[in-house]
């Protein structure tokens, strides 16, 4: 991709700028699609139909929602800490968007082909915590503060089981480079990490159950990272009104909203890259190539996004201490044990 | 136990107490009641709750009443164990409406007495936290009294609509 752009444009700086903007060009339409999906999936699960009038079956509703959010009055509470209040949503978005830099959208495009790709993603998405804390504190509202503190505790705790899960896959693959991880998994569905990767069959039999457990651990932790039910304690609507979001309106709220959905796609994308092949096609030679691989990557990511939406509207939410208990006393030991077992199997 | 027997038991126990004021009105349509004096409410309540034959463990309702010239409190007592009921009435003059609080006997009375104080101005002696409950804390007057006049202004807002 980089060579293609350089041949097109010539100026190296402009090429880098365009590469940096391409994920944004993905995120914005994706946000509209996922807002629509969320409301329609929720509606059909709840035995009702959502919007039907704006566009065919409500397809233009997300645009209407965005326009509404953007034209709202941007209020700042009088006693709020102005600078932190204004900057917080952007920091949250930056933390999320920076993770997109290392996601392999296609075999020909990756924003930044880091050797420590997955490590970088785990690290940079922690920036979100800083933004949330700033939002909660700067709102000068006790309920927002509650939400922010809970959120910080939750995200930090759940990074540990997710890092263990990632560690297991890195052990099998031998590389942290996301483009290489996806390349390893080409050649059909049997090469996907969830089915043991490119290991010999004997080892696969032992590895597959361990990888399955690691996937479940990773998926649950990723739900907690994104603050979605059953882990949406920080924005628990029925308790904290909107948590750290309470005092935000208009454009800043839109940025929070966008950041939440972008983060959702980012963790779903990481799940597909690690476990489900990334941009590798499930057929060994059919539907491969730069454009097809982009298609596979995005559709697998959307599949996990839809799974997340499904779970959000089914399950109640956990209480803060139960959440912490689950992270430290359930997921982490499981993930740790799996990684140890995986190490043994691989060494054998 | 019928109200007649309950009244007899009360008289037997408290009849000798000076100014206990036990007066049983058993032919009242529809619910018979026993009137007692305001100064001995606490002893009566304790006896009614703890005596093995009475065991009135459920204070269902404590309402204030404005009888012309006097204020009253009406206690609806039930026994879940023995399945009988009785109504107690206490009357006090409007100028000094002091009744002993039964909050220590039945915790239901906590909020009911606050409501009676709020709406009638009955002062319950011994209540741990007697303040208004339904009306704003700085409201003046006791609305359910028959001679209540709606104030013109409350905190600068015109009250009669």
């Amino acid at each position, binding site marked *: 991709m980089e060579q293609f752009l350089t041949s097109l444009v010539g100026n190296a700086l402009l090429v880098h700028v365009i590469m940096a903007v391409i994920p944004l060009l993905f995120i914005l339409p994706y946000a509209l699609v996922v807002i629509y999906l969320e409301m329609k999936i929720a509606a059909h699960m709840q035995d009702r139909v959502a919007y039907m009038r704006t566009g065919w079956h409500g397809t233009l509703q997300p645009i209407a929602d965005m326009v509404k959010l953007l034209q709202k009055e941007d209020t700042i509470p009088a006693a709020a800490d102005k600078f932190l209040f204004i900057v917080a949503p952007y920091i949250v978005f930056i933390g999320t968007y920076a993770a997109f830099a290392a996601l392999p959208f296609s075999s020909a495009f990756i924003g930044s082909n880091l050797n420590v790709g997955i490590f970088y993603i785990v690290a940079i998405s922690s920036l979100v915590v800083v933004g949330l804390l700033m939002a909660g504190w700067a709102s000068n509202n006790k309920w927002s503060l509650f939400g922010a503190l809970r959120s910080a505790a939750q995200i930090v705790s759940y990074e540990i089981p997710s890092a263990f899960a990632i560690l297991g896959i890195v052990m099998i693959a031998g590389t942290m480079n996301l483009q290489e991880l996806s390349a390893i998994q080409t050649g059909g569905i049997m090469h996907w990490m969830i089915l043991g990767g490119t290991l010999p069959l004997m080892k696969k039999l032992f590895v597959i159950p361990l990888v399955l457990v690691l996937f479940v651990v990773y998926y649950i932790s990723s739900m907690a990272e994104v603050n979605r039910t059953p882990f949406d304690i920080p924005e628990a609507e029925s308790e904290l009104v909107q948590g750290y979001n309470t005092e935000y309106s208009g454009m800043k709220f839109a940025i929070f909203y966008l950041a939440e959905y972008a983060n959702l796609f980012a963790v779903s994308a990481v799940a597909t890259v690690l476990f489900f092949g990334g941009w590798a096609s499930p057929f060994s030679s059919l539907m491969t190539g730069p454009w097809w691989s982009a298609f596979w990557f995005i559709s697998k990511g959307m599949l996990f996004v839809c799974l997340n939406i499904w779970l959000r509207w089914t399950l*109640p*939410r956990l209480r803060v*201490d139960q959440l912490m208990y689950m992270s430290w006393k359930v997921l982490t030991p499981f993930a740790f044990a799996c990684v140890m077992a995986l190490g043994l199997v691989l060494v054998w | 136990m019928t109200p007649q027997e309950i009244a007899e038991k009360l008289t037997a126990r408290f009849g000798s107490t000076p100014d206990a004021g036990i007066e049983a009105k058993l032919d009242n349509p529809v619910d018979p009641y026993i009137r007692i004096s305001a100064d001995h409410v606490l002893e009566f309540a304790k006896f009614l709750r703890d005596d093995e034959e009475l065991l009135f463990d459920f204070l269902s309702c404590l309402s204030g009443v404005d009888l012309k010239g006097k204020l009253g409190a009406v206690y609806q007592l039930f026994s879940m164990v023995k399945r009988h009921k009785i109504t107690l009435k206490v009357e006090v003059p409007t100028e000094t409406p002091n009744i002993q609080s039964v909050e220590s006997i039945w915790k239901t009375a906590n909020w009911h007495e606050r409501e009676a104080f709020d*709406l009638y101005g009955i002062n319950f002696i011994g209540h741990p936290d007697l303040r208004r409950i339904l009306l704003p804390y700085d409201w003046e007057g006791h609305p359910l009294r028959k001679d209540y006049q709606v104030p013109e202004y409350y905190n600068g807002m015109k009250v009669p609509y």
Partner: protein
Amino acid sequence: MAETIAAPPKTSNGKPLRTEEMIINMGPQHPSTHGVLRLELVVDGEIVVDVVPHIGYLHRCFEKHCEHMTNYQQVIPYVDRMDYVCSMNNEFAYVVAAERLLKIQVPERVEYIRVIMAELQRIASHLIAVGTYGIDIGAFTPFLYCFRDREKILDLFEMTCGARLLYNYMWIGGLSHDIPAEFVARAKEFCAYFKPQIRDFNNLLTYNEIFVKRTAHTGILPPEVAVNYACSGPMLRGSGVNWDLRRDDPYSIYNRFDWDVAVGTGETGPVGSCWDRHIVRMKEMEQSVRIIEQALAQIPEGDVQSAIPKRIRPNPGEVYARTESPRGELGFYIVSDGTGTPYRIKARSPGFVNLSVINEIARGGMIADLVAIIGSIDIVLGEVDR
């Protein structure tokens, strides 16, 4: 799961770190206080140390209004609006009290229809209670299933008296309208439709692991405390006390039907927890369906307006009558001075009494537990404040 707080950490010179308790206001406008209820919380981190409820935001001077009515029948729309979620049961309580005062005996058909309406309303009210309880805990979907089923009940009411929420249906001595011809068939259809819905709902929410974890160990109300505070309804039965006014202090014709009283047994945790109150409500809905089916099968013919008195002028006297509304014991204390205007009507509302217990049971838990507890008490501020 109110675990004890660990010993406070120490600073570098060995003295314990000073923490402060925060006073936080769960204000009159809040998504999960079920109305305009203000709770002042004193919290130490997430642990609730003290809860002080402030009510009165919805006080509409119902009792004062009643003293200026020209007629006992005029009180009925006011009584509707006390607990607007279960209006039929409010009316039922009031007309039972008034008919006891006036010594009126209503026709059999009226009794049967009243029981059917009251039990349908009980189901509708419990559907709101459990649906909103799900939302408080975080499950958004069961709420919509509950409202879908509630719509069917409201259709039945609309067919009969034209109103969906506030009916003015049960009059002293009879009813305002007779049930239309297709009511019995439609109500039977509803009963057949509703029974599997309860089972589905239980699978979705009640026995969900997360829901059980959130509610099974919080809000424990010991039975002696419940009786001392005069709690009633699912609050009392959830604590294991087998007491139901329809059976134990009977009114109307409930003793003709075969039904059970749902009592909490501590299936998932200690008896008296929020979960027990929730399962009592679910079981009560099943029993209400049983009562409705039996009543529909036995309903006799008659004129529903034959016993309505032309002029209501009771003898001087007073009466206290109590009935079982979905939230507990709803009682009316009516004092008559011999004229057509009521002298004093006091409504003993279950929400008012049940809410007073909140300080006892919410202390020591977390804020999330407090939300679960308020949801399980199932208050409607309209009747708390009257």
